[in-house]
C-alpha cells in the first residue's frame, strides 16, 4: 500500500552525547519503529519523557537523519541523500513543526514580522506574504496583536504566533512537539482548539506529541512509544483500555478509564470500557442500578 501520506519503516536513531564529558555516551532513542500516517489524520503520540517520541518527530521533520530505516512523505524518500537542496526545502515547507518553548522559536521583534519569516524564506512575493500573514494571524485569533512585541505576550499567545508562522507557509502536516507542555490551562485549551480546527477544517495532518492523556484522548488515533519502540497503536478507546500497561510505562489513562480500572482491581466485574465521563457515567449507572449485577 502506497496510499499512506507518511510512511516510517523500521526507524532507528542513536543519540551520541558528547556534552560535558569527553567520552561519548550512546542513548538508543528509537529502535525499529514503523508507523504509517494517512493524509488528514489527527494522531497523538504518547510517551513519557525520554521515550523517543520527540526523536520520531525530529526525524519526520528532517531535523535529524535516521541511523537506519526509511521515511517517505507523499511518496518521496526524505532519507535519500541524493535529494537536491530545493527538494529538501520544499519538504521542510510541507512539514511544519511547533516546538515546546514558545520563546525559542520566534525570530522577529514584531509579531507580524515573525509570521512573515517563513514565507519570506520561501521567496514569496511581498503582497502574497502580507495576505498570508493576515490570514494566518486571524486564524489563530492574534490579528489584534500584529504590531506587538513577542516578549510582551503570554506563553499561549506566543505559541499561537508560532503556529501562525507555520500556517503561513501552507504546510500539509504540522507536528506539535509537546507544544502545550509549558502553557497554562487557558493557553493549552487555545492551542488545542487551533490544532483541531486546522485538522478538521483545513485538512492538515496533525501529529500531537504529548504526555497529557486528555489531549491524546481527543485524537483519532494514539501511538504509544516506550523505550524507542511502538508499544500501542490504536483508537483512544483501544489504547486507554490497557490501563495496567500504561501504568507500567509511567503513563496514565483519562480519569474515567482509571476509575473503571480501579473498580476492577477492587474486585468488581466490569465487562466494557469507557474513556469519557459520559460513557463512564452511563456504564456505572447500568452497573450500579443492578441491571448488570
Amino acid at each position, binding site marked *: 500500500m502506497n496510499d499512506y501520506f507518511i510512511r516510517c519503516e523500521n526507524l532507528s536513531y542513536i543519540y551520541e552525547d558528547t556534552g560535558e564529558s569527553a567520552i561519548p555516551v550512546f542513548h538508543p532513542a528509537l529502535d525499529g519503529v514503523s508507523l504509517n500516517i494517512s493524509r488528514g489524520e489527527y494522531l497523538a503520540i504518547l510517551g513519557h519523557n525520554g521515550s523517543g517520541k520527540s526523536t520520531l518527530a525530529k526525524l519526520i521533520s528532517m531535523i535529524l537523519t535516521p541511523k537506519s530505516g526509511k521515511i517517505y512523505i507523499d511518496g518521496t524518500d526524505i532519507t535519500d541523500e541524493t535529494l537536491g537542496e530545493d527538494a529538501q526545502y520544499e519538504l*521542510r515547507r510541507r512539514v511544519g513543526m511547533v516546538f515546546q518553548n514558545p520563546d525559542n522559536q520566534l525570530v522577529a521583534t514584531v509579531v507580524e514580522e515573525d509570521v512573515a519569516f517563513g514565507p519570506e524564506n520561501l521567496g514569496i512575493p511581498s503582497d502574497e506574504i502580507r495576505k498570508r500573514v493576515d490570514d494566518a494571524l486571524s486564524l489563530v485569533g492574534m490579528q489584534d496583536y500584529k504590531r506587538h512585541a513577542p516578549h510582551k505576550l503570554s506563553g499561549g499567545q506566543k505559541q499561537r504566533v508560532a503556529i501562525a508562522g507555520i500556517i503561513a507557509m501552507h504546510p500539509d502536516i504540522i507536528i506539535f512537539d509537546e507544544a502545550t507542555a509549558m502553557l497554562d490551562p487557558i493557553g493549552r485549551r487555545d492551542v488545542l482548539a487551533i490544532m483541531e480546527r486546522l485538522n478538521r477544517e483545513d485538512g492538515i495532518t496533525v501529529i500531537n506529541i504529548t504526555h497529557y492523556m486528555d489531549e491524546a484522548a481527543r485524537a483519532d488515533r494514539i501511538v504509544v512509544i516506550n523505550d524507542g519502540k511502538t508499544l500501542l497503536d490504536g483508537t483512544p478507546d483501544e489504547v486507554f483500555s490497557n490501563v495496567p500497561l500504561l501504568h507500567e510505562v509511567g503513563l496514565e489513562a483519562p480519569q474515567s478509564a482509571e476509575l473503571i480500572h480501579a473498580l476492577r482491581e477492587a474486585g468488581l466485574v466490569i465487562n466494557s470500557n469507557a474513556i469519557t465521563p459520559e460513557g463512564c457515567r452511563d456504564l456505572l449507572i447500568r452497573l450500579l442500578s443492578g441491571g448488570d449485577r
Partner: protein
Amino acid sequence: MISDITLGQFFPGSSILHRLDPRTKLLLSLLYIIGVFLLNTPMAFILYTLITLSLILASRISMRVILKGIKPIVIVLIFTMIINILLTSGEGEPLFSFLIFAVYKEGIIRAFFMAYRVIMLIVGSSVLLTYTTSPIALTDGLESLLSPLKLIKVPVHLFAMMMTIALRFIPTLIEETETIMNAQKSRGANFTEGSIIKRARALIPILVPLFVSSFKRAEELAVAMECRCYRGDVGRTKMNKLKYRLRDILWLTVGALLFAGLILLSVKSAELSALGEAMRILFYKI
C-alpha cells in the same frame, strides 16, 4: 528592577518622521552628525538650532521626553564644561582668575560650543533615528544601505539577522537574568555585600546558568529557523519592502541643501576665496 530598563526607546507614532523610509533617516542623520562638527559661526549655530527644533516638531515627540533623554548626561556635560573653561588659555587678558586658574573668553565660548554640540548630537540622532524608527526598520534600513558591500563578500544579511535576533532576545534575557538572580538569592546568595572579588565570584551562579540557557535557546532557535526554511538570504523576499517615496526624495534634497548652506556659513570667507583660487588654478592647468 532590571526589567524597567527600556532599550532602543522607540516611541510608536505616525508623524512625518515616523513615516520616512529608514534609509532616508539614516542618511539624514549622517549629514546631521557631520554638520554638528563642521559648524563654527554664529549664523551656522542659529541655522542648526532651527533645523533641530523643526525636527522635534516634525517628530511630534514631546519636549519633556527630549529633555529626559538629555538628563543622564547633564552631570558629565557640566563637568567637561568646567574643565574646558578652566584649562583653555586665550590670547588677551583673562576675564578673571582664582587659585591657579585663569578664565578666558575663549574657554567659555569653547565650553559652550562643546556642550551645544553634544546636546544637538543626542537630540538630533534620537529624534531622527531611535525615537521614530522601530528597531526592525532600522535593521532593514542598514541592511539595504550596506547591501553594495555584498559585492565584496561582506555578509550584510547575516549581520542584519544577528541584530534582529539580538533585539528580539534582549528583553527575554533581561527577564531571565532577573529570575536566576532571584533563584540564587533564594538560596542565600548575596550580590551586594563583600569585597569586589567576593562580589565578582557571586556572579558565577548567575552567569553560568545564563550562558547554559542562552546556548540552549540558540540551538533551539536555529532548529526552528531551519524548519521554517531559513537558508540565509538565498531566494529571500521581504513582506515590507523598503520603498523611497516622493517625501523621501524631498527630505533628502532639503537635507542636502541645508548641509551645503551650512558649509557655506561655516567656512570663513577668506578660506572660501582661497578655495576659489585653488579651483581656478586647477582649471587653468587642465
